[in-house]
């Protein structure tokens, strides 16, 4: 055994992986455990569960150096909410200390000269990076089956996908390999894998978190967010991740950072603990509860909604009439933006270059065709086509017009409710390989997450129970712009009253 993993099987710290971010932070602050001990514990778990496929890169020396630095800060008396707590980053966040591949062969040997803003903010808060997490290539996918490197298994059933594109993040949190992870969400890539693995994740309002250093997929949709076991832990992370990045991301919102965690612990709205959500109106879009959603998912979602009623919330019917149209609209706009963003991979400045070619154009073509996987290639083709002369108006512009109508429909709905709720995914996690080679079948499964992404609204997934095969089901909560605190607070009250978020797969024991 290498010196990086000196913890013996009888170590009393073996239960550290059952602790969330807030609990680990409390133990670190009390001095009952050091960041180095916590980091060693998680590194050992990551090594033992390598077959899950969640990690693309680990480096114990780098992680332990960060942990030692956190211990120095702790010893000096510093007490900040995340100091010394480890996490891992989705591999679309560029990092100086680890390779960054975005799940693509194109970036197989890439090493970024800088850290993403989200990475440097969390490092500044004293978090220790355990490594980089597997994902669909360039975050394009819903099952993590598009990673160029390896599949990720769902810890609840290793023959099933963990969801995507932040599938490595979700699997690692669910299997207790990390207390928390970063993810990115373009059309559901935080919420859907969170739902399929029984963890909590939030996609903030577009622009809350800086996109600087996130490998770009669709720039008008991409947004970073935390994935963890509870709303409280997500609140702690988001408080450090969010905030303006004035010189580096012109689309980051010029709003002051918010302490989401302190808001959560504040007194409930009506001052009583029995009905903490009294007065909260939860809108249920009819289109989210139709025949397209599997009965086991609907049953779990309805069970969770009944719990919200017990907590004092009222359920109201709302309508999002263009929900089905959000699929073609998204799958025109996102590939259009992707085809532009991925044009930077030319085999010149970074990324793969073919070994043999005739001239410059041939070098571009061979390098790109060798470097991109099937789904990235397909989306580049779709995007290039819808942006090309003669088709721009019929497809791209048309999609952008419907995008506005979709956003307006949400405002109509929010006139009648405070948050919107429904399923995240129409089914529980599917079998690896089950969707075959039919991209449209995969795209259709994104139906409940795409519309809020197109509108730029914040949304989250919280564990709501289990469906067929004992597989997790997530409840989606969608808030109006800037209402992350309300979403997290609503989720927190649910998690104080239920224990779905504390359930762990057997594989994590």
């Amino acid at each position, binding site marked *: 055994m290498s010196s990086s993993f000196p913890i013996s099987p009888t170590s009393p710290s073996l239960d550290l992986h059952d602790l969330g971010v807030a609990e680990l932070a409390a133990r670190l602050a009390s001095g009952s455990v050091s960041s180095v001990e916590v980091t060693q514990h998680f590194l050992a778990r990551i090594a033992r569960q390598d077959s899950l496929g969640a990690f693309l890169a680990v480096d114990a020396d780098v992680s332990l150096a960060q942990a030692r630095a956190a211990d120095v800060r702790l010893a000096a008396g510093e007490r900040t909410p995340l100091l010394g707590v480890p996490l891992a980053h989705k591999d679309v966040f560029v990092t100086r200390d680890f390779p960054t591949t975005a799940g693509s062969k194109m970036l197989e040997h*890439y*090493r970024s*000269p800088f850290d993403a803003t989200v990475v440097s903010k969390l490092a500044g808060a004293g978090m220790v990076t355990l490594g980089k997490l597997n994902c669909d290539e360039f975050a394009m996918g819903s099952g993590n089956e598009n990673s160029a490197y390896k599949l990720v298994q769902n810890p609840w059933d290793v023959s099933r996908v963990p969801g995507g594109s932040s599938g490595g993040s979700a699997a690692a949190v669910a299997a207790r390999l990390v207390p928390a992870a970063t993810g990115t969400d373009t059309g559901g890539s935080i919420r859907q894998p969170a739902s399929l693995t029984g963890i909590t994740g939030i996609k903030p309002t*577009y*622009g809350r978190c800086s996109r600087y250093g996130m490998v770009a997929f669709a720039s008008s949709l991409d947004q970073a967010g935390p994935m963890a076991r509870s709303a409280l832990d997500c609140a702690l992370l988001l408080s450090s991740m969010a905030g303006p990045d004035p*010189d580096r991301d*012109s*689309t980051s*919102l*010029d709003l002051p950072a918010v302490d989401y965690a302190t808001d959560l612990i504040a007194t409930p709205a009506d001052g009583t603990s029995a009905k903490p959500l009294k007065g909260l109106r939860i809108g249920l879009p009819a289109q989210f509860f139709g025949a397209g959603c599997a009965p086991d998912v609907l049953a779990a979602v309805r069970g969770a909604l009944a719990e919200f009623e017990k907590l004092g919330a009222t359920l109201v019917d709302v309508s999002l009439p263009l929900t*089905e*149209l959000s699929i*073609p*609209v998204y*799958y*025109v706009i996102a590939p259009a933006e992707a*085809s532009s963003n991925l044009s930077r991979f*030319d*085999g*010149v*400045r*970074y*990324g793969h*270059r073919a070994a043999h*070619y005739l*001239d*410059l*154009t*041939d*070098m*571009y*073509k*061979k390098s*790109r*065709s060798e470097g*991109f996987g099937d789904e990235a290639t*397909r989306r*580049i*083709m*779709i995007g*290039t*086509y819808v942006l*090309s002369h003669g088709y721009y108006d019929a497809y791209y*512009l*048309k*999609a*952008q*017009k*419907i*995008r*506005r*109508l979709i*956003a307006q429909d949400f405002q109509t709905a929010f006139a009648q409710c405070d948050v919107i709720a429904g399923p995240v995914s129409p089914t529980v996690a599917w079998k690896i390989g089950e969707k075959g080679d039919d*991209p*449209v079948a995969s*795209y259709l499964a994104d139906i409940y997450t795409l519309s809020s992404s*197109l*509108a*730029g609204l914040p949304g989250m997934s919280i564990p709501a129970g289990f469906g067929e095969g004992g597989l997790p089901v997530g409840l989606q909560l969608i808030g109006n*712009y800037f209402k992350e605190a309300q979403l997290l607070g609503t989720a927190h009250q649910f998690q104080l009253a239920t224990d779905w978020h504390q359930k762990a797969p057997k594989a994590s024991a």
Partner: protein
Amino acid sequence: MALTFKDIERVANLARLELRPDETEHTLAQLNGFFTLVEQMQAVNTDGVAPLAHPAALLGDVALRLREDIASEPNQREASQASAPAVERGLFLVPKVIE
């Protein structure tokens, strides 16, 4: 309106991708399946609706900003070129462009 084999070849060239003939056939079938879905958009009446390029346009008085056009990053040429496929004396090497 179905795409043709020629359309796929044209788009692949625009995107600087090289597809083998069997890949072109496969892509053609998949994209035609996909565009059947996309055609649903044409049923939506969007008369007088302005295209929405970006959600920031919906966020009211939260203005996006521009910064001064000044060099603010340190010179990291070596770090930036460390991942380049071919570099010589600080320059990126490409195949000969001008005869």
